[in-house]
């Protein structure tokens, strides 16, 4: 009997999870000093990809090359990847700057920034969906970079290699200051 009890005890120990939460981690920008004049950080126009979600959950993406309504969020992934990697060296897509990465060497790091704007009426579901696509696009680029240089996908790299990849392909998603658009 005691053996059976032990078996059951161990079974339940294995089966129960402690409910660790999973989600999308973000770092909010610090609040600007209230006395200080609001200053827009000068981002070169070509580096900026604006993604806007309207009250009706329509998604628009705009950079120097395109300005379009996105009907399927998965399309957004391609736009983001093209904007950040800029494989053709397009003058109107994001700029690349040589940077010395410790333990790796020189690499042309993209200066592209994705600016995500939403409206007060946007549904949270859509917002997370778009956030997710943006992260997925960046993860794709990171995976490609990892495979090319280390022969493995990003998640299978060791800590130092991941650090290198993170530095080579930064996750520049900025959440713009909220604007009261659809509100009286």
């Amino acid at each position, binding site marked *: 009997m005691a053996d059976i009890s032990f078996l059951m*005890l161990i079974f339940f120990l294995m089966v129960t999870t402690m409910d660790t939460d*999973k989600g999308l981690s973000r770092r909010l920008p610090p609040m600007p000093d209230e006395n200080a004049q609001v200053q827009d950080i000068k981002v070169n126009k070509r580096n900026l990809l604006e993604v806007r979600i309207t009250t009706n959950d329509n998604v628009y993406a705009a950079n120097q090359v395109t300005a379009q309504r996105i009907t399927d969020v998965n399309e957004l992934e391609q736009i983001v990847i093209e904007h950040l990697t800029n494989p053709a060296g397009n003058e109107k897509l994001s700029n690349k700057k040589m940077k010395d990465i410790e333990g790796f060497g020189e690499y042309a790091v993209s200066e592209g920034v994705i600016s995500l704007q939403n409206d007060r009426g946007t*549904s*949270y579901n859509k917002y*997370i969906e778009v956030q997710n696509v943006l992260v997925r696009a960046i993860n794709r680029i990171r995976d490609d970079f990892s495979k090319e240089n280390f022969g493995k996908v990003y998640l299978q790299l060791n800590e130092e290699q991941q650090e290198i990849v993170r530095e080579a392909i930064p996750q520049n998603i900025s*959440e713009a200051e909220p604007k009261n658009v659809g509100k009286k």
Partner: protein
Amino acid sequence: MAKFLKKGGKDMPAINTASLPDIVFMILMFFMVSTSMRQTDKLVNVKLPEATEISKLERKDLTSYIYIGTPTLQMQAQYGTDSRIQLNDSFKTVLDIRDFIAAERENLSEVDRSFMQVSLKVDESTKMGIVTDVKQELRRCSALKIMYVARQAVASY
């Protein structure tokens, strides 16, 4: 004769305790199965949105939770069906977040304070307005590390 006398001794025979561990184990089992680990009562309905690119929460002990959603059925008579913020065990407004964060921060050791994280458990049908307000308030309290809690979705591509 002496033989018979001994047999009819006065002291009771000891209770057999061989099955006691089994009983204890059974009780242990019962409590393990029936208890849940939740610390706070849910006052709002939260159906988390789905996402694929999610990462695990690193330090659970450094995390504070903010729930946003429509009040549960029992609470709707009192609080209506509009999205509300729940901190700890009660409904709060955006303005209370400052105190909440300060209190949570106070609970952490000094070393850990800068690693504090806020988990936002927001219902998927919530409008972004209230979420934006909360985010702005968090920025004001300089609790900058946040996490949008989501469910694991099956990759669709």
